[in-house]
C-alpha cells in the first residue's frame, strides 16, 4: 500500500498549518498520508534544524523517536525519520523524512530542540553509526561493554554470523557446556 494516496477531500487544517509554518524553501514537500491525521514532510538533510524548530513553534511539541532505515541495496542512503506529535493540537503526527549518504552518514543534532533527541541520537549512533554533528556524547550506551564491532543494525553486516564467531566460538546456538547429571531421587542418602 502506498503511503501517500492521501485522503485529500476537503480542506485539511493541520496540513495547511504545517505548510504555513515551515520556512519556505527549506522543505521539499508536505503530504497528507493515507492514515488520518498523520503527515509527512520531506526535507533535505541540511534543512533539518530550521524545519524542526519551525515544527516546535507550530505546536508539535512531543518528540517521539528517530528511526533510521538502511536502504543498502536499493539506494546507498540512510533514511532518517523524525517522529513528532502535537499534544497541543490534539494528536496529529508529523514524520520528517530525510536522506543522508551511506558512506558519510552525518546530520545535525537536534538535541537542544527536543530533549529526548539526545538519547535517540545516541541510540542511532550505536546501532547505525550515524554521526550527529554537535552532539557531545556519542558513545555506546545500550551496547556498552557488550559489543565490539561494526554497528549491528546495518544491512551489509551479518550480525548473526559475527555473534556466533565472536561470542560462541563458531558454534550455532550451543556453547560448549558440561552435561549435568540428573539429581538423585529425593529421600535417598
Amino acid at each position, binding site marked *: *500500500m*502506498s*503511503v501517500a494516496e492521501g485522503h485529500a477531500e476537503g480542506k485539511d487544517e493541520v496540513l495547511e498549518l504545517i505548510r504555513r509554518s515551515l520556512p519556505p524553501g527549506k522543505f521539499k514537500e508536505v503530504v497528507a498520508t493515507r*492514515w488520518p491525521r*498523520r503527515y509527512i514532510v520531506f526535507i533535505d538533510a541540511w534543512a533539518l534544524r530550521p524545519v524542526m524548530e519551525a515544527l516546535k513553534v507550530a505546536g508539535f511539541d512531543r518528540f517521539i523517536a528517530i528511526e533510521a*532505515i538502511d536502504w543498502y541495496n536499493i539506494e546507498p542512503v540512510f533514511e532518517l525519520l523524525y517522529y513528532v506529535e502535537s*499534544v497541543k493540537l490534539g494528536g496529529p503526527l508529523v514524520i520528517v523524512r530525510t536522506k543522508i549518504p551511506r558512506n558519510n552518514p552525518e546530520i545535525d543534532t537536534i538535541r537542544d530542540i527536543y530533549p*529526548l533527541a539526545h538519547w535517540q541520537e545516541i541510540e542511532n549512533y550505536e546501532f547505525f553509526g550515524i554521526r550527529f554533528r554537535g552532539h557531545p556524547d556519542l558513545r555506546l*550506551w545500550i551496547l556498552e561493554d*557488550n559489543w565490539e564491532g561494526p554497528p549491528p543494525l546495518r544491512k551489509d553486516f551479518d550480525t548473526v554470523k559475527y555473534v556466533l564467531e565472536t561470542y560462541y566460538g563458531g558454534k550455532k546456538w550451543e556453547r560448549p557446556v558440561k552435561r549435568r547429571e540428573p539429581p538423585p531421587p529425593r529421600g535417598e542418602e
Partner: protein
Amino acid sequence: MAESKPRMIFLGPQHPGAPGNVAFKVWLKGEKVVKAELVPGFLHRGFEKMMENRWWEVDVVLSPRYCVEDPDNFELAYVLAVEDLFGVEAPEKAKVVRTIVAEMSRIQSHLFWLMHMGGATGARYIPGWAMAAREEILKWYDYVTGHRIYHHYMTPGGIRWNIPKDFKEVTLRALNKVMPIVKDIEDAFINNRILRARTEGIGVVKGYVAVQLNATGPTLRAAGIKYDVRKVDPYEAYRDVDFEIPTGTEGDAHDRIVVRIREIYQSKRIIEQLVERVKPEDLNYRVKMPLLPPPSLPWPAVARHGEGMSRVEAARGEAMVHVVGIKDRKPYRVKLITPSMPLLTTVMDYIIEHEDITIADLPIIVMSLDPCPPDIDR
C-alpha cells in the same frame, strides 16, 4: 563536609528499588542525589534485527517479548502495522476480542506495577495482594489464549483461535475477583497516610513541562494533560466505547499512582462494554493473509516499497510500530517505538535537577514513573 566531592554508587540492576533490568549511576552528596544516569542494555536482544530475519507472521511471536509486563499492547501494535501494510482489515469480532485482551493486559501491567510500588515504599503486604489479583488475570489468559505471559493470540488478519464458549462469564468472573482486591489496595495503600507522606510532593512533573520533556502515558496524564492515543487516534474497537481519561492535578508521585488505579477502573468499564458484543458462535474471526505484501504504488521518497504504521496506547504510554516491506516474505525494517525511554532519561533528569531528592526517595520516583526497562533496550 561541605567541600566533599559527589560519590558515585550503582543502583541496580539487582536491587529491589530498581525497576527490573536496569541500573543507575547515582552521584550522592551525603544523602542528596546530585545526578542519576541511566545504564541500560542489560536486556538488549536485538529484536529489530531478529524480526528482519523471520517471516511476517512469525514475528508475532517476537513482538510481545520486549516488554514482559504489558505484552499484548505491543503485540497489537505489531499486528496492526502489518495489517496496515498488507491492506487487510480484521473482522469486527477479532477487533473486539483484541481490544479486550489488550485492556486485560493493561490491568495486569498496572497490578504488576503496584507490586513494584509496594516493594519500593516498603509496604510488604501490597506485593502479595497485587500478584494474587494479577494471577486471576493470568488464569483468564491461560483459559482464553493458552498461555499465561506471552499469548501470541493475535495474528495479522484476526485472532488465532476462537474464543471459548463461556467467554463472557469467565471474563466477568475474573474481573469480579480482581476488583475487590484493587479496592482493598486502594483503601489500605493509596489512601494510607504513610504512603501519602512519602509520595506527595515528590517527583513533580506538572503541566506542560511534561510535554516538553516528551513524557508519555500516565506520567503525562498525571501532569494534568488529557492525552491518550485511544481517544486522539482511535484504533480497533475504541472508537465506539465510552470511557474517560483520568488525569491528575499535581503531577507528583502520588498522582501517578492514583491515575493508574483509576485507569484500572476505566479498563474494566471498557471490557464490560465490549464483552457483550462478542459471540462465540460467530466464526468470522480470522481472514487469510496473503503471503507477500502487495506491490505498492509509487510515492515521493522511496518508490516500490510499502509501509505500515500503527500507534497504540500501551500501559506505559504511546507505542508505535513502523514496518517497511519490500516484496519479500520477511520485513525489510521493523522499528519498535516504545514509551519507556523518556521516563528514565529526560523526566528523571528534570526531577533530580529541580528537587532535593534523597537516596530513599529515588526508588519511589523511579517506580512511580513505571518504566519497563526491556523496551528501552529491545
